[in-house]
């Protein structure tokens, strides 16, 4: 890997926000392609974060700080990505379903997806089925990601999928669901396209959905 990119890569792994920002600046000054900076300096770093999480080397705190370093770096790189017409891996509308105010799982998934090159439309928490439908209608959504922490709010995942279906938009998007009470079986029962048990597996699932 290019030396400048490896500085950026390591800053992200360490959750070093200013190091990651400096890394992007240095890579841009050195005239590296924005697409390469994103792919090798950032997406690869977040893949490594995901791997370390799966292996039990990283826990949620390390993942969160790495993702925040990635976000800081990405915000600097974004204008250059637009200028060079670098396409995102896909566009994801994500939210915690109606009645549920828990956000950390949803935030982690959003951060990891962003780190994998997806464009994120974060609808927040307590998101009604209508809001998801509206987001899809607004266009530019390939994947809808639904989160729920509670057994009591999980049924609103079904309500949301039903609403998307009734609005005639089901064919336009892939749907991925996850959260503490959610099981693979539940995902298939309610007609979701994929189930993810954590942020790292959400990335693999999303990547497969947009292939």
């Amino acid at each position: 890997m290019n030396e400048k990119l490896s500085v950026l890569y390591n800053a992200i792994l360490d959750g070093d926000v200013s190091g990651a920002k400096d890394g992007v600046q240095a890579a841009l000054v050195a005239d590296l392609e924005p697409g390469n900076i994103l792919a090798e300096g950032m997406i690869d770093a977040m893949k490594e974060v995901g791997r370390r999480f799966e292996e039990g080397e990283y826990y949620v705190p390390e993942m969160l700080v790495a993702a925040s370093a990635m976000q800081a770096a990405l915000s600097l790189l974004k204008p250059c990505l637009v200028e060079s017409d670098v396409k995102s891996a896909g566009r994801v509308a994500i939210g915690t379903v109606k009645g549920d105010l828990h956000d950390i799982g949803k935030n982690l998934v959003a951060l990891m997806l962003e780190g994998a090159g997806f464009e994120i439309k974060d609808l927040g928490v307590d998101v009604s089925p209508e809001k998801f439908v509206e987001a899809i209608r607004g266009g530019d959504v390939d994947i809808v990601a639904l989160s729920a922490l509670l057994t009591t709010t999980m049924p609103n995942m079904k309500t949301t999928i039903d609403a998307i279906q009734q609005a005639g938009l089901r064919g336009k998007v892939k749907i991925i669901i996850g959260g503490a009470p959610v099981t693979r079986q539940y995902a298939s029962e309610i007609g979701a396209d994929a189930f993810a048990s954590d942020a790292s597996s959400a990335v693999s699932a999303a990547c497969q959905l947009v292939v």
Partner: protein
Amino acid sequence: MVEMTSEERVLRVLQHQETDRVPHFEWLVDRRVREALCPDITDYNEFAVQMGQDAVIVDPIFKKERVSANRWLSEWGYVTQDTAEEHGIEVESPIKTIADFERYTPPDPHAPGRFAAVEDAVQKYAGYKAVIVHLNDVFSLPRYLMSMQELLMAIVTQPELVKALVEMSVTVNLELAKEVAARGAKIVYTGDDFAYNKGPLMSPRHFREFFYPGLCRVMRGYKELGLYTIKHTDGNLWPILDMIIDSGIDCLDPIDPVAGMDLGEVKAKYGHRIALKGNVDCAQLMTFGTPHEVVEATKEALRTGMPGGGFILSSSNSIHSAVKPENYLAMVQTVREFGRYS
């Protein structure tokens, strides 16, 4: 064996002595389940008594003031929003930096009226039901005061702030516990969650550095006041379970099967040192299953937990609003029928 009072039964379980039968109680039974089963009873503790629970649960009273239609500012300075469940969720937190912490003053543990509910419960139930007071240990207060996400990040980015918050949590809770003990309650439970389904919220190394020393201090402090301790935490605890047990707790709850905690395995490894409380699955089974399935799961928990004593039967968290009332009833009837020591 002679029929014991509920208080004796629970205390003896916590002391690892024989009991007449397995005690059972819940931290919370949701209003909708209570109304379905006992529509005429409005008092929570009276419901617990009616259902044959062996304990009543009380909290110190902290004021809260309404700041919008569904939001409340607590005496601690964080804001909660109402949910469909009986507890709100914190949505605004007062502390982000060490400077915020230095300006922060926690509520006075000794404020008048703080223990009115504890006093009532002791007066009404002591000698009859076990009176268990809900306090905290090292995680919930830092989490409420910073938000979960900010707290977890601060473990890496602001270690001194996390340590200061843990220290404050220990100090305040030990002051609260003095008042609890002075009022004659004998048991406290702490509900600070350290884990989620897949594992601890932080690495074992971070748990050891940031939370374990405080956990030892607060649990030791409770013991020095003569209080028994039941430690509740959700999630898969295996990577940090030795530390939790070594902190000096008397009982672990709820051994969540959905998070990969196996009652038999925990009992085999730690049953000689602590009592266990749990663990009929309320996330899936009591919500979506049938009474027959709940009966079978309760019998299985009894078969596993009862040998040698030191076991309290309960759900794997609480009787939340989506638990079918008939399933809760099935669990209660099963422990009554099959939870007797011969």
